[in-house]
C-alpha cells in the first residue's frame, strides 16, 4: 500500500487506457478502409468501376422517361446520369415521395453485372433536406444536367 505502488497502479491504468484507445483507433481505421461506402457519380462509375458487390453510393439525375415499373409492381428500373455517363439502376421497394424523373437521387447499393442494384433511395426531400452529396448542385446545374442527359 505504499505510495510507489499507488503510482505504479496509476501507470498501469494509463497504459491500459492508451492501449485500448490505440487499439480502437487502429481497428476503426482498418474497418473504415474496408467498410466505408464511396460515393460515385455515373462517370466515375464508368471510368473506375468498384469491385462487384461492394457497397457504394451512386448519385445523379434520374433520366427523363427512364422509370419503368416491373410486372411485380414494386420493382423499378431507371437510369441515373450525370451528363457524361448513364447507369441502369434497379430498386425493389417503395420509392421516396420526391423520386421523380428529372430530379436528383442518391442510391445506396452495389454493382451487379452492369446494373446498379439499390437497397435504398434518398431523394431530394425539400429545399432544406438534400442528400449531402448533391448539395453542391444548384437547381440550374441540375436542370442543365438533366437537359444534357436527355
Amino acid at each position, binding site marked *: 500500500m505504499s*505510495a510507489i505502488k499507488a503510482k505504479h497502479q496509476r501507470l498501469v*491504468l494509463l497504459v491500459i*487506457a492508451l492501449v485500448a484507445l490505440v487499439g480502437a483507433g487502429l481497428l*476503426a481505421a482498418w474497418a473504415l478502409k474496408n*467498410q*466505408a461506402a464511396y460515393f460515385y457519380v455515373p462517370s466515375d462509375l464508368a471510368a473506375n468501376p468498384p469491385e462487384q458487390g461492394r457497397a457504394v453510393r451512386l448519385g445523379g439525375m434520374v433520366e427523363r422517361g427512364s422509370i419503368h*415499373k416491373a410486372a411485380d409492381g*414494386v420493382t423499378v428500373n431507371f437510369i441515373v446520369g450525370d451528363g457524361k455517363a448513364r447507369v441502369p439502376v434497379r430498386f425493389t421497394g417503395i420509392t421516396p415521395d420526391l423520386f421523380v424523373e428529372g430530379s436528383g437521387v442518391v442510391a445506396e447499393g452495389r454493382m451487379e453485372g452492369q446494373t446498379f442494384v439499390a437497397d435504398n433511395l434518398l431523394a431530394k426531400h425539400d429545399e*432544406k433536406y438534400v442528400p449531402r452529396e448533391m448539395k453542391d448542385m444548384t437547381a440550374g446545374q441540375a436542370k442543365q444536367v438533366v437537359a444534357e442527359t436527355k
Partner: protein
Amino acid sequence: MIAELGLAVLWMAAALAVLQLVAGILALRPEGRQVAGLVRPVAVMQGVLVAGALVALITLFLTTDLSVKLVAENSHSMKPFIFKLAGTWGNHEGSMLLWVAIMAVAGGFVALVEKRLPENTLIATLAGQAFVSLGFYAFLLLASNPFQRLPEPAPEGAGLNPLLQDIGLAFHPPTLYVGYVGLSIAFSFAVGALVTRDVGPAFARAMRPWVLGAWIFLTLGITAGSYWAYYTLGWGGWWFWDPVENASLMPWLAATALLHSCSVLASRNALKAWTVMLGVIAFSMSMVGTFLVRSGILTSVHAFAVDPERGSFILALLAIYIGGALTLFALRASTVTEGARFSFVSREAALVFNNVMLCGILGIVLVGTLYPLLTEAMGVKVSVGPPYFNPVSAVFAIPMMLVMGVGPLLRWRQDSFEGKGAGRITLPVGVCALLSAAVLLGVELLAPQIKLLPALGLAIAAGLAPASFLPLRGRNLRRTPLATWGMVFGHFGIAVALFGMASESAFSTERLAAMRPGDVQQVGPYAVKLEGIGPVAGPNWTALEGTVSASYAGAAPSILRPQARTFSNPPGNRTESALKTRWNGQLYAVLGEEGDDGRWQMRFWWKPFVPMIWYGGALIALGGLLALLGRVAADVRRLVATGKIAYRRERQGR
C-alpha cells in the same frame, strides 16, 4: 412588445452571466471574499430570466405573432396547438434558446440546492458554468437572435417541416437537450474541482446526482428518438447510425462511463483524474454533437440551418471550451493525488474495464461519424454505415456486457473467484454463462441462417437477464438500497434492449407487394388483406388511407390504417406507418403509391419482440431514476443528521 421584452431579458441574463463569472473569479481570491455571497443569487436570477425569455418565445409561437421573423418562417396560424408549442424548438434559433434556458435553469438549480460541496469548489463550478453559458449567449444574441422582427408582418407563416409535425417533437428534443445540457453541470463541476484542486469522494458524491439526472434524460431522449424515427420514416429500422443519432449516442456513452467512474470515486477514492477527464469529455461530446447538427455541415432532417458562419462560431466555442478544459486538466492533473489501490479482481477493476470499453465504443462512433467529413475535405465522398458501426462497436460492446454479468457481484478492493467467492460469484455466474452457451448452440443448430452478431446478442441477453438480478441474491429485499435496485433494473434493461435488437435483426420478415383491394399476403404469422383505399383529411393535411385487416395465426382480424399524407403548409409528403403491437412483436404496415394498373404498393414487416428495444431503454432510465432517488434520499438524511448534531452541540455548548 413580448419579443422586445424577451430580447431585453435575454441580454440582462447574459449580463448576469458576466457578473457571475467575474464575481466567481474574484471570490476565489482571498481579497475578494466579500463578493462570494453574490454568486449563488446571481446564478438563480440568471436562470429565472432566461426561463422568462423562453416563455416569451413560446408565447409568440402560441399566438402566431407573424411580425417576428422566426415565427413567420417556422409556424402557421392553422397549425394544431401542440405543434405551435413544439415548433418553438423545431428550428435553429428556438432550439438554441432552449439550450441556453436549460443550461441557466440547471445552473440556478445547482446554486439553490447544492450544499455538500466546499463553498469554494461550488463558486468555481458556478463561474465555470457562467463561462460556458456566455459562449452560448454570444452565439444566440449575435448570430441567431430568435426575437428578430420583420420590417413588415408576414401575411401568413411558412409552416413547419411535415416530418417534424409529430407528437415526438414535443418530447424528444427537450428531453435530449436536458440531457445534453445537464452534462454541462458535470463539466463545470470538473472544472471547479480542478481549479480548487479538490477532487475527492465529496466531489464525486455531489456530482453524481447531476450526472444521473442528465443521463436519465439522455437515455429517455435517445429511446424516444429511436422510436420516433422507427415509426415516422417508414423504413422499418430503429437506428440508422445517422450522424445526428451518433451525436446523441456519444454523450450517452461518455455519461455512462462517467456514472460508473463516479461511483468508484465516491466509494473508494480512486480513479480521480479519470473521472474529472470523463466529466470534461461528456459535455465536450454534447458540444461536438451540437456542432455537427447545428453547423449545417451535415444534412439531415435535424439540420435546420445551413449557415457556415454559425458553423464557424460553434467550432470556435468548441475549441475554446474543450481546449481550455483539457489545458486546465493537463496543468492540474499531476496535482490530483493517486487514488486508493485495488486488485485486478475487484469491483473497481470491473468498472475500469467498463469505462475503457465504453470509451472504445465512443472512439469508434466518433471516428466513424467524423470520417466522411475528413475525407470530404480531401475531395473524396464516402458514407459510413452499419457495416462499419455494427461489428466494430460489437468488438467492445460484447466483452463489456460479459463483464457486466460479473462486475456487480465483486467486492471493492479485492475479491476472488475461489474459496468464498466460488459460491457467491463463480457458481451463479457459471449457470448464467451456461444458459448463454446453450442459447448460442441452439441458435446455431436450429437456425444456422441467423448471422453471428444477432446470435451472440440473443445468447448474451439470455445470460445477462438473470445475471443482472444476482446482486439481489442473499439480500433482504426490503433493506436493499434503492441505488442497488437502480443498478439491477438498469442492467436488466440492457439485457432486454439487447434481446429486442437481436431478435429484430434475427427474426424480422418483410413482405413487399403490389396489392389490389381484396388481395391477401402472408407476413410471418399474420395474414394481411388490403380492404380498400380512401381519402381522409386532418387539420392541415390530406391523406390517402389504406384499410388493412390483419389476422394473427387465424385469429379475429384487427384493422391497420397506414397513410400517405400530403401537407399544404409548407407543401410536403410523409408516410404514416401503421403499427399493431402484440406481446411478442409488432406488425408494421406502410402504404406506397398506386401503380398504373390500379395496384397499390404495400410494405409489411413482422418484427418479433421489437418493442423490447424501447422497453429496455425505459427500464434503463427507470434504473437511473431509482438510483437518483436513493442517492438524493441518502444525502438528505445525512444533511438532516449533521444538522441535528450541530444543533445539539450548539445547545450543549451553551
